[in-house]
């Protein structure tokens, strides 16, 4: 590692090469600005591409395939139990990730974005100090902070590659298929990875602090998934915490304490801890600037993604929840646009979220439980997939499309879907909410039949009392 002497000047310095960072860099370059993208890792793409969203989807495809192959026996098509070649799986993941990250590099070149591999720290509000590159300092007119987030571990427990205690990053390397796996944390990512390992053959035990899976998510949407999880996991413990964890050569000793139960100690082959992520806002020199952070260490920004320093912006995981790649991408583009003088702002009406399990769960906008908490009166339009012809042809009758409406104007406030393909169906919901669509807009738009998408139209029709494939009562 050579500490260079060079100082370069740039118009826009982007710190972090994940979705937020590269989206910002590309947009800024497209708008004619001169951009330098500083990425700490060897490859572009951030957590999402390298050890998050993308690898997870590769393995989840495998999971669904395994499930379908096993289920096909009921349909008159019987497969033998497959040989699982972990090395082959890993190679496939690498191929996909490699192709995407090379693609990002190409885009950088095509757009004339200067890419520097280094760790960046703020020396003051106009200068970065770099480590690990020939360039020692970057002086910038504007900066966009997109340093992302890091998995939180249990107190006193560290994640180490090759170790028995993993975060999502290590888990997605799939070093081996453990005989027993303890999944700590029943949130989005945990549940996804748990289902991957369960499909690959591990006996998975889930321990979750709250009273059910996916805290915060509408229970109507969780129910079909919970049934599947219960069926495929060995055990699920709710209202339970991990009170001690000790790594040994031959396994991990974990003590679980449930509400009102006595503590139990069990031994697991591996432990996957997915209890949250903290923003990467420490140790990057923010104290040398006027940039403010809140009590949870998120960088404080306004609607234009500006920090307290007018010329420094921040986007993505580092500025707050939800920690989603598409939120980071959108914010990155807003920040770039604002720097270039465009009238951009982060004023979206909803950020869709997707859980890529089987069945998938996706939602956007106001959920029924959130409305209840707010004390806001809403009305629902429901369509159960048991009545969907397409769902039945797929062998997927477990599903639900649920629309949340404002009773007075009948405007779409929220959409929730559980079932296969929810990840794509939810986009229509997001568009409806952003456009201020009302129930009639969805009900009167012809959706093809038979598809899963028509469940959205039928749910709106159910709300209005017009549905065909279900009985709906309207006042």
């Amino acid at each position, binding site marked *: 590692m050579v500490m260079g002497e060079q100082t370069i000047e740039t118009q826009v310095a982007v710190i972090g090469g994940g979705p937020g960072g590269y989206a910002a860099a590309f947009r800024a370059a497209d708008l004619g600005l001169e951009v330098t993208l500083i990425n700490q890792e060897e490859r572009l793409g951030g957590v999402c591409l390298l050890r998050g969203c993308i690898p997870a989807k590769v393995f989840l495809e495998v999971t669904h395939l395994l499930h379908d192959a096993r289920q096909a026996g009921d349909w008159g098509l019987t497969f033998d139990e497959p040989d699982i070649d972990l090395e082959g799986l890993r190679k496939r993941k690498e191929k996909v990730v490699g192709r995407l990250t090379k693609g990002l590099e190409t885009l950088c070149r095509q757009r004339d974005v200067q890419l520097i591999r280094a760790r960046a720290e703020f020396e003051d509000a106009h200068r970065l100090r770099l480590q690990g590159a020939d360039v020692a300092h970057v002086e910038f007119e504007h900066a966009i902070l997109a340093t992302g987030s890091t998995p939180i571990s249990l107190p006193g427990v560290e994640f180490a590659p090759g170790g028995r205690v993993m975060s999502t990053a290590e888990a997605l390397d799939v070093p081996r298929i453990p005989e027993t796996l303890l999944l700590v944390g029943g949130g989005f990512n945990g549940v996804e990875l748990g289902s991957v390992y369960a499909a690959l053959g591990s006996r998975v035990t889930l321990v979750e602090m709250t009273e059910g899976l996916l805290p915060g998510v509408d229970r109507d949407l969780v129910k079909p998934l919970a049934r599947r999880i219960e069926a495929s996991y060995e055990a699920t413990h709710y209202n339970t915490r991990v009170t001690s964890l000790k790594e040994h050569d031959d396994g991990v000793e974990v003590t679980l304490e449930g509400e009102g139960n006595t503590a139990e100690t069990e031994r697991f082959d591996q432990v996957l801890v997915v209890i949250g992520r903290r923003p990467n806002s420490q140790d990057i020199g923010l104290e040398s600037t006027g940039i403010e952070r809140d009590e949870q260490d998120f960088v404080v920004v306004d609607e234009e993604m500006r920090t307290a320093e007018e010329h420094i912006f921040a986007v993505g995981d580092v500025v707050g929840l939800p920690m989603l790649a598409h939120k980071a991408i959108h914010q990155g583009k807003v920040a770039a646009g604002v720097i270039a*003088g*465009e*009238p951009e702002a982060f004023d979206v009406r909803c950020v869709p979220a997707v859980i890529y399990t089987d069945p998938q769960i996706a939602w956007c906008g106001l959920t029924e439980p959130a409305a209840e908490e707010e004390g806001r009166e809403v009305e629902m339009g429901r369509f159960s997939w048991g009545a969907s012809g397409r769902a039945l042809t797929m062998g997927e009758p477990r599903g639900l499309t649920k629309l949340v409406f*404002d009773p007075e*104007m009948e405007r779409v406030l929220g959409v929730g879907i559980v079932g296969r393909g929810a990840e794509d169906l939810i986009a229509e919901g997001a568009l409806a909410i952003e*456009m*201020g669509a*009302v129930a*009639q807009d969805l009900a009167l738009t012809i959706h093809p039949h038979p598809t899963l998408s028509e469940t959205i139209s039928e749910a709106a029709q159910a709300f209005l009392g017009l549905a065909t494939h279900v009985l709906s009562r309207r006042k």
Partner: protein
Amino acid sequence: MTRAFKLPDLGEGIHEAEIVEIPVAVGDEVEEDQTILVVETDKAAVEIPSPYSATVESVEVEVGDLVRVDNVMMTFSGNGVAAEEPEERPETAEEERPQKEPVETREQKGPVPASPATRRLARELDVDLRQVEPTGPAGRVTAQDVRAFAEGEAEREPAPAEPREEERERRPEATSAVDPRSVSLPPLPDFERWGEVERIELRSVRRSIAKQMALSWAQIPRVSHHEEADITELDRLRRKYKEESGLESLTLTVFIIKAAAAALRDFPRFNASLDAQAEEIVLKRYYHFGVAVDTERGLIVPVVRDVDCKSLIQLSNELQELAEQTRAGEAALEDLQGASFTITNVGILGGTAFTPIVNYPEVAILGMARAAWKPVVRADESGRQKIEPRLILPLVLAFDHRVADGADAARFMRAIVETLKDPHKLMLTL
């Protein structure tokens, strides 16, 4: 049943008024149409009639309060109070009514329904979506609504010409402390450090004048062109007419009005307005003159209409009547609007020259200072120069240099001066 009475719309672009008189009290029985409130707006008093026959339950305002349209003035109770909201409002053009959806109600209903593209447009045009009247289906604000609102705003309050993007681009650079556009107003010092002070609230006519002057000063690159008119003959004629007809009101101003009206026919640019948005000069084919009147409350400018069509006698009488009404505070709002050109005469009080401020949105204003006897060099028939006492009236034309140039002003003023110098010429123009 109690009913709140709110200040009704008072007319084009007028959003606020000052309470001048409250002729009723709590407990009074009022008849429908009885005057229950007198407010003053832009220097004119307006009487507000009661929409019901009812009893005054409470009075929510005091004399001197500055109130806005839709503020509650008083409440009524009694049988005469109808269940429905009385729709009796003074007739105003619907399109020009300022968007009045109370902001609180909108916020309760959540974010304004508008597509992402429309929201971005609103940002670009600096429009607050909550103020826009939606015309889209299901109460949606469309892009057209946003554009229409932005244009409407431009009419009511002319915005600086630069769009928001340019402002943003300029932001990263340091602003110059000597650039008049970028200097932000520093806070006033505490004057009491240096001695005793007295504070007077800016109200009524004074406040209106302050607003109008600020507007005109900011918008119009003004040039003042000074001239002198030899009115020796004209004044002789004037005094003769006055004596013979007994027309006490025949002032010099009347003749100036006539001379100016005649000249404006040949120089229409000075009888115009500049539409900065459309980049068009609006030439007026009518000749309504604002005539500045000094009153106790401040300078008020009532308007005499069609000065080109009226005789000297008519003008004299009308001018006198208007001035009296104005001083008595009885001038109606319509009397103060619609001028195409303004005359201001401080001469009676003194002054050799001054630089009046153009009465926005007009293009020019003609000022008269004090006429005085002066030694003037004149040539007699044989061309020899002599010094004679002549009655000289100093005139000044202050005008908007965007619309007319110095040469035009010089020619225009020359025309007026020539007409005034030789009353026979003035006769020909009448």
